[in-house]
């Protein structure tokens, strides 16, 4: 087919109408995720000592840091759904700053407050935490992947990994609010590593699913 013919056909089909801005879409998704999150909290019930825990600076810092990771990774995923992310290339690195602080906080907790060794922690076999983080993230993750695939991402691995980080982070916060496990070693092995795993899964899925540009 001649290029001029293709141009005529595309012009005949007409240019697609502009989609809502990335920030508006991200806000909408976060609102939906918050409602879903609240529903899960209601279903599970908050941990008995939640009032006491929220007064502990370390617990509060941990939850707020993870919340900032969730918000920033959602923002990054929104921008990464656009083809011209190179206009703000730094945005995809923004969630990594609080993530680094979070890792530091966990390591600090492990060195100073952990009562379990690594082998003892592994023997706990808290696979239920891993499964819950993955399952909690399926619905919002699926929604975010769907919305991102309708856009035109050019950094598909980054977009997928940000989606994985966002939804797994929500799962982490939920577990901290409903599950009484507090030992830092346990948090690292059975809560945080699954979050990293979901980030990698998101990267792999992003590479496979986000590059097709269905429009």
């Amino acid at each position, binding site marked *: 087919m001649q290029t001029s013919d*293709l141009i005529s056909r595309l012009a005949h089909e007409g240019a697609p109408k502009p989609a809502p801005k990335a920030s508006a879409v991200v806000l909408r998704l976060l609102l939906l995720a918050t409602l879903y999150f609240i529903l899960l909290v209601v279903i599970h019930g908050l941990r008995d000592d939640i009032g006491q825990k929220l007064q502990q600076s370390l617990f509060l810092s941990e939850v707020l840091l993870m919340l900032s990771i969730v918000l920033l990774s959602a923002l990054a995923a929104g921008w990464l759904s656009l083809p011209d992310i190179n206009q703000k290339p730094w945005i995809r690195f923004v969630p990594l700053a609080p993530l680094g602080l979070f890792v530091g906080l966990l390591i600090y907790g492990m060195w100073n407050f952990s009562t379990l060794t690594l082998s003892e922690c592994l023997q706990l076999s808290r696979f239920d935490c891993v499964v819950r983080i993955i399952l909690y993230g399926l619905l919002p993750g699926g929604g975010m992947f769907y919305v991102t695939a309708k856009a035109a991402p050019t950094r598909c691995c980054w977009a997928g990994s940000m989606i994985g980080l966002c939804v797994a982070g929500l799962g982490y916060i939920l577990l901290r609010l409903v599950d009484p496990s507090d030992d830092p070693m346990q948090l690292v092995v059975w809560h945080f590593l699954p979050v990293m795993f979901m980030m990698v899964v998101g990267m792999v899925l992003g590479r496979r699913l986000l590059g097709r540009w269905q429009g």
Partner: protein
Amino acid sequence: MTSSPTDQQLAEAMRKAQAGDGKAYHQLLTDITPLIRGFIYKRLGDHNELEDRLQDVLLAIHRAGHTFNSDRSFLNWMFAIADYKVKDHLRSHYRRKAAGTQVGLEAVAELSAPQLRLALDDRQTLERLLETLSPRERTIVQMMKIEGHSARDVGNSLGMSEGAVKVVVHRAMKTLASQARQEDSHANQ
């Protein structure tokens, strides 16, 4: 000699196109074609697939048109898409090369040329040649060239535009022609 349209002019044309102005969209696509062709030429050289890659990029720009916001630079958006499609093509190219299915691209009409002599049964050869295509290309070639459906019908059933179907079948036929020629040269040795 007319000067190249500015970024702002292109953004304004795209804004009009998104508002439903078909003529503005046609002019916009015409204006950006030489820019994209030059961009692809710098990356792939004087390539016999240049027009195919150009059409891939124009299709991608059409499909991703809803992501353009007139607050941002049109040229940056356009070249980001072009860059992505060129890299995507190169990834596929090297993947095919590594898998040993690299083919050159020649004229389409030779596929049905009567002077083409094949050592094997035609149906077997045809099936073998079709296996070298991607699943999407194979489906479209079977529907259009063997079953006789129109490009519009194929596009409707596969959720693609008529233009996109024609681009895919054009490329697939080139691949088949080249494969058939290779088989012919092996048969004559």
